[in-house]
């Protein structure tokens, strides 16, 4: 599979902050990627770079095999944060606009049919729609473009749980119907766990982890064992992602490199959320160093 989005040492510096710090990664085609990170991690900047709304300070990003720009944009669907729409347009007018601003591949009939399916009146102005309906219209407009790559920036942030569910099922229907790559950003992985098959964790402008959710869950374990004076060496552990200390034991999130058979450690399967939290906590990778002091 050729990648849908490739970043090469992608860097974006603002006056005082670094939003993206030499990110290099490739997102495989026809996957649904959860782009997760805390606020300010660089998620919007990353999606902005992929749509040409943000100009990288250094490095490059290409989408669907072409550099970002006028040539790539017709094949990319994008819903920005807060789903900006012309508020005095009706849903129908927005789809008309989509048809006028895009080529023949724009499928207005598909968009209208979808909106009717989810019960949104076509002739109602956008500013009279509920938050969930607003998000649905924005998604529908992006889907009607028939994109090969769909980028959604915090699409669920302003939605209530029911609207989230409806939004995601609409998205899944569309993804099942037609092959496309979807990248959704969120600061909560729980939102996306149900729909994504790839996870990308971004923190402080750096990609902490990127991989298929199945693989990640298969290769990450939570180990619980006795307090340590030194960084433990455990057979079968490739990387200690994060560590935390409880009363008489420590917990390690590890990335395995083989089977772990050490009887000193109990091992548990982890959820996607555990993995995300582990990588987000990994800025101070080994809290074990504090252990000696704490124990003394």
């Amino acid at each position, binding site marked *: 599979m050729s990648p849908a989005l490739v970043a090469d040492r992608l860097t974006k510096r603002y006056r005082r902050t670094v939003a993206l710090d030499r990110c290099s990664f490739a997102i495989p085609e026809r996957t649904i990627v959860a782009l997760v990170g805390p606020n300010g991690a660089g998620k919007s*900047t990353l999606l902005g770079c992929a*749509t*040409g*709304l943000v100009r990288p300070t250094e490095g490059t990003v290409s989408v669907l095999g072409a550099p970002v720009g006028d040539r790539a944009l017709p094949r990319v669907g994008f819903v920005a944060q807060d789903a*900006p729409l*012309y508020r005095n*347009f009706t849903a129908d007018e927005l789809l008309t606009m989509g048809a006028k601003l*895009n080529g023949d591949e724009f499928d207005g009939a598909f968009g209208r049919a979808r909106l009717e399916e989810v019960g949104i009146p076509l002739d109602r102005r956008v500013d009279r729609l509920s938050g969930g309906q607003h998000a649905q219209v924005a998604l529908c407009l992006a889907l009607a473009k028939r994109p090969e790559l769909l980028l959604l920036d915090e699409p669920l942030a302003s939605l209530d749980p029911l609207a989230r569910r409806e939004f995601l099922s609409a998205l899944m229907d569309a993804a099942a119907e037609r092959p496309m790559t979807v990248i959704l950003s969120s600061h909560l992985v729980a939102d996306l766990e149900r729909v994504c098959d790839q996870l990308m964790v971004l923190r402080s402008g750096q990609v902490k982890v990127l991989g298929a959710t199945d693989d990640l869950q298969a290769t990450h374990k939570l180990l619980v064992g006795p307090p340590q004076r030194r960084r433990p060496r455990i057979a079968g552990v490739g990387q200690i992602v994060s560590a935390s200390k409880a009363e008489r034991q420590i917990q390690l999130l590890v990335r395995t490199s083989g089977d772990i058979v050490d009887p000193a450690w109990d091992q548990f399967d982890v959820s996607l959320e555990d993995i995300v939290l582990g990588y987000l906590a990994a800025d101070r990778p080994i809290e074990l160093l504090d252990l000696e002091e704490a124990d003394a």
Partner: protein
Amino acid sequence: MTWLVWRQHRQQLLFALAALVALAAFFVGTGRPIHDRFERAGLPDCLPEAMQAPVVVDLGAAPGSPGQGGVDDASEPDTSELDGAMLANGRCVQEAREFFGDYQNVIFAGLLLLVLPMLAGMFWGAPLVARELEDGTYRLVWTQGVSRMRWATTKIGLVSLAVLVITAIYAGMLTWWITPVIQTSGQRFAYIFFDIHGIVVFGYVLFALVLGVFAGAVTGRLLPAMATTVVGFLGVRLVVMLAARNHYRPTETRSLPDLAAIGHPTMRNDLNGDWIVATHARAGTEVLTVHPIGQFWAFQAIETAIFIALAIALLAGTMYWIRRRVD
């Protein structure tokens, strides 16, 4: 793209057309009496010739006291020695002065018309990009299949076209309305008249419009963009008007005939509309430093060119900013 421009600006267009209708009502309502009076006074027939005379007899002054209007104690000035043409011109100038005296208050309306182009910049130009940036909808419209540059050129192009058409209609009505007053004022070059009719209006409108778009693209905020448009438009207009316009063409000198030789009170005839920069008395006659009225359209063309050039420079700046505009 055209559809989107129409959809986004149709309300503004309707508003502008309503304003045009209101202006038309004002021009027709106030213009009819002006034109009636202008024609009843016979001014359309006599003015073309009377305007040409450098000096005319002063029918309001007594004979035997040449120069600037002596005090008249006789009942009727003796005009018998004057030839017919000179008398006719004098009468025409007299009529024109009275007419202008009665209608010069339209100047106050003219003051309002001076700022009309600025409104195009504030209400059409400034929101064009600023509102998209302020509402965040640029992230919607700049990520569609149409390129950002085509979006900008179509939008600015069509809005400019609409504004120019509206300006043409407006300028046509205004010219009809104000021509009698300008002709009898002898001040076609005066700030108040030069700046509200002719082709300069098109230059001002384009400049104001693009200035608004530019300010909006740079600041990304509607109110600062509107404020910048007001300050920038008035500033540039004043500088050009007060500092530059006088230098568009070299001045010429014009000597008046010896007024004493006519034998009847005479006066300088300014009706032709020359821009009198200075007057000197030299050996009994007056010498005027002027921009002759024949240069009027050259001045208008130069001033229009200046503002169109500024508009083009601002347009290039706008395109640059829109292309570079990133988060």
